[in-house]
């Protein structure tokens, strides 16, 4: 069959159809690409348009409110009076102003016409002079200068306007032109200055009106708002960024969060509700934080995290994707950002959650296992100091050897004279150097001693278990501490029954054996009274669960009666720092009386007797507890102990017997378990004093790469459920420390050792926040931002560590707005109760003489003889305890309080002018005035009187107070300590001085000085005899009445 010719599909078929379709598709993809470029990748454009819409609405609403308010203001008679005065003043000066303006106007025209001519002339002349200056040939130079001279003389024509509107043409030589020009300008300056003088009064009136307006209208004026409205309407759609040049930081957060700095920039705080419910546009909720962290300098992402440069989508910008290492913090952990730069601050304003986290880290004993730079670092510092001491010792030995050699060589007859002299001089210099070294060594020695005293442990000393505890209670406690005391710091370890037995046995057998001196029982009723009034509740609590009253800083004592040995408890309450045996760090054991007897020494160890009789090492002579001595008498201690013994919910005899604890076979197993679980991190345990912490260092845990964090078998679950990040790990680990052992097959000792800390959700959030912020320097933020204060800032920073360590805030108010623990107790809610509260320490640095404060902190009884009292406020039942501060701690605290009040350091006591005889009389009159009988409330040292005293003794003033503060105090005490019993309004202002508000005694009527000043000087020169004399004069009863007078005074002011 012959083939039929066919059409070739390649040649014959048209491709226009497919080409058209493909081209259209290409066109569509191009359109898509353009859309993506302009909108898809720039979502901020939509946000900005939306913002403009909402913001203009918001502004319009505000404008309406404001215009109504301003209208009302304009109608007020005061405003109208001001307005009228202003109009009159304006009318008064109007003709003069008009005349000046007219003349200035004419001058301006003339000057501008002349400027042109003058500038041309000057240009021509100076150019020729330059030519002459740079001309190499001398004759050319002269020729040019002659030409210049000719031009200057020849002069210029100027066409100038005349006031009547016509023009005139004048001819000037160059010099004339210059003179004319200057004169015109001078005249104009004169006129303008004159105009200011003439309108001065009008200006003042305008200012008055403005001030009045500002005082009566809150917020921006209507015109300002209208300006903002126009600005908002014309908002340019563009990327808005903060660029900090020094740190190369670029944050474009504002491209979408348009209202976030509106409060700061223009004073309009936008709330989500106010701006159409869009949280995205709301102003930053903490303007006070922005005030100290200027966004223009700090940007946004260093604190909040996120990818500040990204603007293509919220997810990108917030850095919430796998490859951005520094994602936006979750709202509950925002304060992690603070920690990044403020790691060295123990207490930070505006960061309550973070502060709580840090507090918990120390309080709950995390620090016992996990090192964290800055926390409880005394042992490390002690080691550093010891190292330094050894280095100095070596250095000194080297110098001594060199002295010897120098002298030997110098005394050698072969040494030339010049050389010998040099060697002798060198030896002398080295001797001086050594003497300097000695001073340094002495300081280091003191420092080492101090550091040793400053080491505190989280848990109690377990060497004393046999003396302190009932044996049968220990295994019960170990089984589940939270069952016995839900709020305890002691975490619950996941122990097998066998492990509990071994650990209990080891602890029991390693304890110091012996007997406590037997103590007679006290009065439990009085004990309760003492317990509740002496301030024990500032740290401890009583009552279970919701009914607990008191602080969680230290143990809740509700069931203490079930576990404790009475005789030991009495001794503990009397002075908790008193050890039963001193510890020698060189021999690594507790010394016994035999050690002392061997050297013929009495078994005596305290701060004065703190060297080891065997090897001279510095001993640990006190219990490493922060619990201070309340300077109680033995009887008081017995009463409190007897009371505490009644605190129990079951009889101690009902505990199951635990005879196995005396089984020596369990000792070794117990010891290895104790070592494994790191018990010695928190407790002092015989033989394990020098154990290291067993946990990970958490100083930079927040920046540990996520790959290095062991999610174990939960990795994939975490990824799927979205918690494969640091926060997810920390939260889960804190809630259940065993969680990452799930599904793992491990030997018991290889399991995760972290015990169950029994934290609330809020506590977990706080600790997580703290850990999230614990990052390496510069992790996601410029390292320059790290807070490294000097002077005052550093003093404050250092002080907080001590203040929180000893729980000063349990009794005292230190930060404004922070209640102390005691302030929250029911006992102190009444006005009488409040007077029994320990003093607030706000502003105390301005109040107290630092030297006195140092002495007071060392011994709050202010007396070597009578320790059982408060040195200053003897009328308070709450006892300021003796904390046994070291010199360094006292220095730090004194500097801290000074720095909080902005005091210069060191303090130099100002000299007050002594009183003249007449002034003595006057001051006495004032001091004992019936309207302000100072001695009614202030203690005098007379026990009969001081029973009712509610204020300190005046004899302390001279040593204790600063005169400046004393004056401010008597002028207005309520503004320094709100609610103080000290009456305010005792003085009133009269011209430049303060005078007494009450009826003036005759002697003072013609006194021209400042009454408050006089009283202050009097107080600072007050002597014991003088005070006694005054007391006698005031012996008549009537304190109630006199107080009423002073109260009336307050009211009348």
């Amino acid at each position: 069959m012959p083939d039929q010719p066919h059409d070739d599909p390649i040649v014959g078929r048209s491709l226009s159809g497919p080409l058209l379709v493909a081209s259209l598709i290409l066109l569509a993809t191009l359109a898509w690409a353009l859309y993506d470029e302009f909108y898809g990748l720039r979502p901020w454009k939509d946000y900005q348009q939306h913002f403009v819409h909402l913001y203009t609405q918001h502004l319009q609403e505000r404008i309406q409110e404001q215009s109504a308010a301003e209208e009302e203001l304009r109608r007020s008679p005061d405003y109208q009076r001001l307005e009228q005065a202003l109009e009159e003043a304006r009318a008064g000066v109007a003709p003069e102003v008009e005349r000046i303006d007219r003349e200035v106007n004419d001058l301006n025209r003339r000057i501008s016409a002349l400027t042109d001519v003058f500038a041309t002339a000057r240009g021509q002349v100076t150019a020729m002079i330059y030519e002459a200056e740079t001309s190499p040939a001398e004759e050319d130079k002269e020729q040019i200068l002659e030409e210049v001279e000719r031009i200057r003389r020849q002069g210029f024509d100027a066409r100038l306007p005349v006031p009547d509107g016509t023009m005139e043409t004048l001819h000037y030589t160059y010099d004339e032109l210059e003179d004319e020009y200057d004169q015109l300008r001078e005249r104009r300056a004169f006129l303008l200055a004159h105009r200011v003088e003439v309108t001065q009064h009008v200006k003042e009136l305008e200012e008055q009106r403005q001030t009045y307006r500002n005082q009566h209208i809150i917020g921006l004026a209507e015109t300002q708002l209208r300006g903002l409205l126009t600005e908002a309407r014309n908002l340019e759609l563009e990327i808005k960024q903060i660029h900090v040049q020094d740190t190369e930081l670029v944050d474009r957060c504002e491209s979408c969060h348009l209202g976030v700095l509106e409060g700061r920039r223009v004073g309009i705080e936008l709330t989500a509700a106010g701006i159409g419910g869009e949280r995205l546009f709301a102003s930053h909720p903490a303007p006070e934080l922005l005030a100290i962290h200027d966004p223009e300098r700090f940007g946004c992402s260093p604190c909040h995290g996120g990818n500040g440069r990204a603007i293509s989508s919220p997810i990108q910008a917030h850095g919430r994707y796998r490859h951005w290492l520094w994602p936006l913090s979750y709202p509950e952990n925002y304060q992690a950002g603070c920690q990044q730069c403020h790691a060295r601050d123990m207490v930070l304003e505006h960061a309550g959650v973070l502060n709580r986290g840090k507090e918990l880290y120390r309080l709950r004993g995390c620090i016992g296992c996990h090192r964290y730079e800055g926390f409880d670092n005394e042992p490390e510092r002690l080691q550093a100091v010891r190292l330094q001491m050894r280095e100095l010792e070596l250095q000194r030995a080297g110098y001594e050897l060199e002295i010897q050699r120098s002298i030997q060589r110098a005394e050698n007859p072969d040494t030339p004279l010049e050389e010998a002299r040099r060697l002798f001089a060198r030896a002398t210099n080295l001797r001086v150097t050594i003497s300097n070294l000695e001073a340094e060594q002495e300081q280091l020695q003191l420092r080492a001693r101090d550091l040793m005293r400053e080491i505190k442990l989280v848990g109690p000393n377990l060497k004393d278990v046999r003396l302190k505890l009932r044996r049968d209670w220990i295994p019960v406690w170990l089984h589940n501490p939270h069952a016995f005391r839900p709020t305890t710091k002691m975490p619950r370890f996941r122990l097998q029954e066998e492990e509990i037995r071994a650990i209990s046995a080891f602890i029991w057998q390693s304890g110091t054996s012996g007997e406590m001196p037997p103590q007679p029982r006290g009065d439990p009723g009085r004990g309760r009274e003492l317990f509740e009034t002496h301030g024990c509740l500032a740290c401890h609590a009583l009552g279970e669960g919701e009914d607990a009253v008191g602080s969680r800083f230290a143990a809740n004592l509700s069931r203490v009666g079930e576990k404790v040995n009475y005789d030991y408890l009495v001794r503990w309450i009397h002075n908790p720092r008193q050890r039963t045996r001193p510890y020698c760090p060189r021999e690594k054991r507790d010394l016994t009386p035999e050690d002392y007897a061997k050297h013929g020494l009495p078994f005596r160890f305290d701060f004065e007797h703190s060297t080891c009789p065997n090897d001279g090492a510095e001993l640990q002579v006190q219990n490493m507890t922060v619990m201070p001595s309340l300077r109680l008498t033995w009887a008081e201690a017995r009463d409190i102990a007897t009371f505490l013994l009644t605190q129990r919910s079951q009889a101690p005899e009902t505990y199951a017997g635990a005879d196995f604890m005396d089984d020596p076979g369990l000792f070794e197993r117990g010891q290895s378990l104790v070592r494994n679980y790191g018990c010695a991190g928190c407790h002092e345990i015989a033989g394990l004093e020098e154990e290291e912490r067993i946990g990970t260092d958490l100083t930079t845990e927040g920046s540990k790469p996520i790959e290095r964090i062991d999610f174990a078998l939960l990795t994939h679950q975490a990824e799927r459920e979205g918690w494969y990040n640091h926060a997810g790990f920390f939260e889960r680990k804190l809630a259940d420390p065993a969680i990452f052992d799930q599904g793992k097959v491990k030997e018991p000792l290889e399991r995760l050792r972290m015990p169950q800390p029994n934290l609330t959700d809020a506590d977990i959030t706080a600790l997580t926040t703290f850990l999230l912020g614990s990052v390496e320097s510069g992790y996601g933020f410029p390292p320059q931002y790290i807070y490294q204060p000097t002077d005052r800032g550093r003093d404050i920073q250092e002080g907080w560590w001590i203040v929180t360590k000893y729980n000063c805030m349990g009794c005292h108010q230190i930060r404004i707005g922070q209640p102390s623990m005691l302030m929250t107790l029911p006992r102190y809610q009444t006005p009488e109760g409040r007077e029994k509260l320990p003093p607030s320490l706000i502003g105390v640095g301005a109040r107290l003489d630092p030297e006195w404060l140092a002495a007071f902190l060392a011994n709050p009884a202010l007396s070597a003889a009578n320790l059982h009292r408060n040195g200053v406020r003897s009328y308070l039942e709450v006892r300021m305890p003796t904390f046994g501060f070291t010199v360094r701690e006292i220095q730090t605290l004194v500097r801290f309080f000074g720095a909080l009040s902005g005091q210069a350091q060191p303090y130099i006591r100002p000299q007050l002018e002594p009183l003249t005889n007449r002034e003595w009389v006057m001051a006495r009159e004032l001091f004992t005035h019936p309207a302000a009988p100072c001695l009614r409330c202030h203690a005098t040292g007379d026990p009969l009187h001081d029973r009712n005293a509610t204020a300190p003794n005046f004899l302390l003033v001279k040593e204790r107070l600063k005169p400046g503060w004393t004056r401010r105090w008597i002028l207005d005490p309520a503004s320094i300590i709100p609610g103080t019993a000290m009456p305010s309004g005792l003085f009133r202002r009269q011209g430049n001085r303060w005078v007494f508000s009450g009826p003036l005694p005759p002697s003072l009527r013609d006194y021209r000085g400042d009454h408050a000043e006089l009283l202050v000087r009097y107080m600072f020169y007050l002597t014991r005899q003088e005070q006694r004399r005054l007391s006698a004069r005031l012996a008549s009863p009537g304190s109630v009445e006199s107080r009423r007078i002073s109260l009336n005074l307050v009211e009348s002011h």
Partner: protein
Amino acid sequence: MDWHQLWEIVSTPDNIPIVALLFLIPFYTWYGLRQARANDRLLGDLENDPQKAKTHHRKTFPYKPGWPREVHVWPFLMRIEFLAAIIVTALLIVWSITLNAPLEEPANPNLTMNPAKAPWYFLGLQEMLVYFDPWIAGVLFPTLIIIGLMAIPYVDANPLGNGYYTFRQRPVAILAFCFGFLGLWVLLIIIGTFIRGPGWMWFWPGETWDHNRLIFEVNRDLPDIVGITGSAGKIVFGGMVVGFYYLLAGLLVHKVMTINEFTRKIYRRMSLLQYLTIQFFAVTMLGLPVKILLRQLFRIKYVWVTPWFNV
């Protein structure tokens, strides 16, 4: 079966070309071979029917009477290429809009990623590192591959098969290509992408990539298995084994090259240099799968252990 894991691997922007590869390569291989078969059949017809050979103008299939013997590049080829260019451009634009470049976090020298994978087109090379010394897998083999590819035009003694699809006229070349490209290069890329997980461990598709996975594998050198301990003995023994392999594989290659009359004809056209070059590259290429099998099936680490290199 961990579908989530599978999806994660397949959907990673980096892996899109390889997922496409999975479908495109078989398709085009099949498509090309189909065309080759049709052409081969036509060639056979023409050979058997001299008359037909005179009247038929095209040697390629399909062919219909009346079709021109040749057509111009412009516009007939160009317009098709233009259409293809438009379609590919549109495709690339859509691709670039929808998938972002897979940028990751800043590199951290203290923490390398796991698994750390090369770009997809280098994954075959990376996979070779499992089986050979870095020096051999990373330097020697890539160099040989390039030189071998460059040498092809010079060692090709077969003048047929230019400009149309055919299998019959180039069986050895096509088989060698299929083996080297599909069987080795593409397969290794696919293994590197889908199979190699954390720790470069072997995970079957659908297995969870567990970073903490532990496997027990002991790889031993061949001389150790045989019981040779001395280093000199190892060198000699390894050299002998490798030499033996080259001999054996050379015979095999020779067998393939002279398998039928047609290939023998080509073989006779070759110079000695051409023949030896082909032999060397073919045998070396064959060595790769042999080594892979030795490792995967018998857990043999190296065959030839010397202080300078290991094979």
